[in-house]
């Protein structure tokens, strides 16, 4: 579990910051138009930021709980 978690953290970081937050994916939402009253570009990044905070919080809390559980 531990080595795979380490690998998972690196992959998560690479996918998030070198793929999802980068072009060409950003290019798909890079139109100066509004979506639900918010620019698509801002909306996309806002959602990713929120996901980052939630997913990272879950990962870190799980790691800490496991560590505490194992003594």
């Amino acid at each position, binding site marked *: *579990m*531990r*080595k795979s*978690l*380490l690998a998972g*953290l690196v992959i998560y*970081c690479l996918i*998030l*910051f070198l793929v999802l*937050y*980068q*072009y060409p994916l*950003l*290019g798909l939402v*890079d*139109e*100066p*138009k*509004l979506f639900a*009253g*918010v*620019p*698509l*570009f*801002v909306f996309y*990044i*806002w959602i990713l*930021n929120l996901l*980052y*905070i939630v997913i*990272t*919080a879950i990962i*870190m809390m799980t*790691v*800490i709980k*496991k*560590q505490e559980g*194992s003594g």
Partner: protein
Amino acid sequence: MEPWIIILLGLAAYILLVLYIGYRGYKVTKRTLEDYYLAGRGLGILLLMFTIFATYQSAYMYIGVTGFTYEHGVGIWYSNVANLLWAFLFIFIGIPLWRLGKAFGYITQADFFAHRFNSNILRLIIALWMVLGLTPYIGSQALATGRTLTTISRGVIAFGVAVMLYAITVIIYTSLGGMRSVAWTDLIQGLLMLGFIFVTLEVLLGKIGGIPALFEKVYATKPELLSIPGPKGLMTPGAWFGFLLCDALGGIMWIQNWVRFYAGKSWKTLALMTFLVPIGTTLMFFFSMLVGLCGVVLEPGLPSGDLVFPTLMVKHLPLWVTAGVVIGLFAASMSTVDSLSLALSSSISKDIIALAKPEIDESSLVRLGRLFIIAVIIAGCLVGYYAAGTYLVVLLTLLSLSLSAILFPVAIAALYWKRANKYGAIAGIIVGIIIGVKTLLFGPEFVFGIYGGLWAIIGCALTLIIVSLITPVSDKEAKSVEQISKVLASPIATMIDINDAYKVKTTMKQRYSTIIPRLIPSA
């Protein structure tokens, strides 16, 4: 009563509060380097979160982000994304450094590099570069707030007096209580800067009709502000990629951020920062960016983006909000300068003075450190004062930022690659600096569409690898690597569960017991 007097009274109350915190910090701080510079490595979740958040967010959040958005649009989000990456890297750099700092008694950034590569030359290069490069940054912060104070007092408080008042306040509370005072003031300052930018936004949105109305009005007048590269074509995909990486990697290597890795209470405290700090930075960026867009609607046609925040403040905010915003601006600026001056002072004391006079005791270093805080802030203000508006301040700050990011491959190699040696590290830094200076200061800033700062990092990494592979690792270096490996085994595995991960049967306590006595005499 004149409005500016009310604003100054609010500011005076704020100054008295931070001075009181400084005094309280002084009463409980011991005369040891660890206690003075790192709050005894005992910062809990709330204090660590706010000191990291407030240290990283300077007056730039009020003036710079709003101005950038006004001129170039929502492309400023790159900097917020960089904040997230920076925080995530705490897992790979911050947590291992917390553990190493505790085991080997690191106080400064250069302590780690000097120990790992067994090189005092490297220690001196890093310390001198940070001190020379970042001192003018202190000046630029003092000048921005000094000018604001002069403007709101309608010239009654002269510019020089305003800068002096600012400098004296930071000097007193920082030098008195060290990291403990800085962390507590950062908590107050972080809340103030976040709170008052939010109130500012609320007032401005009230005039415009809410967030959807704001976006619709910007879309109707200047739609290119709502996408990248923006109206002036600045934020190209290459710029987005390069700025984001350099901002994140430079941020994690910045001396005032780095020392906070040593100051946490436990590795868990640092692990929580990976998502707690981004909550604050994301909110701050979101509010600042929207304030910049409010400027597009309410004050179109300003000659420079830097003017948007002061203009909105003067023309559109009620007096009590203006007073709060001035305090928020001071808080944002002071929270960066206090942390920076403290980190630079520790570097001068420990990396330069203690190197020249190894027999000097800790309490003398703390005493000298207090004087260095005064010296660094005065020097920064003088450089800023006399070089205001000249190329010197920009040049030195740019160079220091570049070097910060250049250190990233050296840090990663130091932690994760046993074959990396001091020749590789020094050669890598020199090559990185040359590329950084050439591209960022003399141009072209983009080579093959990639930002020069990124080329500097790549150049440093490649040189480090090649030189390390063709030069030997000295016996002393190998011993340092062994000591670090024993403490970490694997930094990430240590964080998760070292026994299961690497089948290491000894406990951390057993491991430390063989290392600490040799390295930390007091243990």
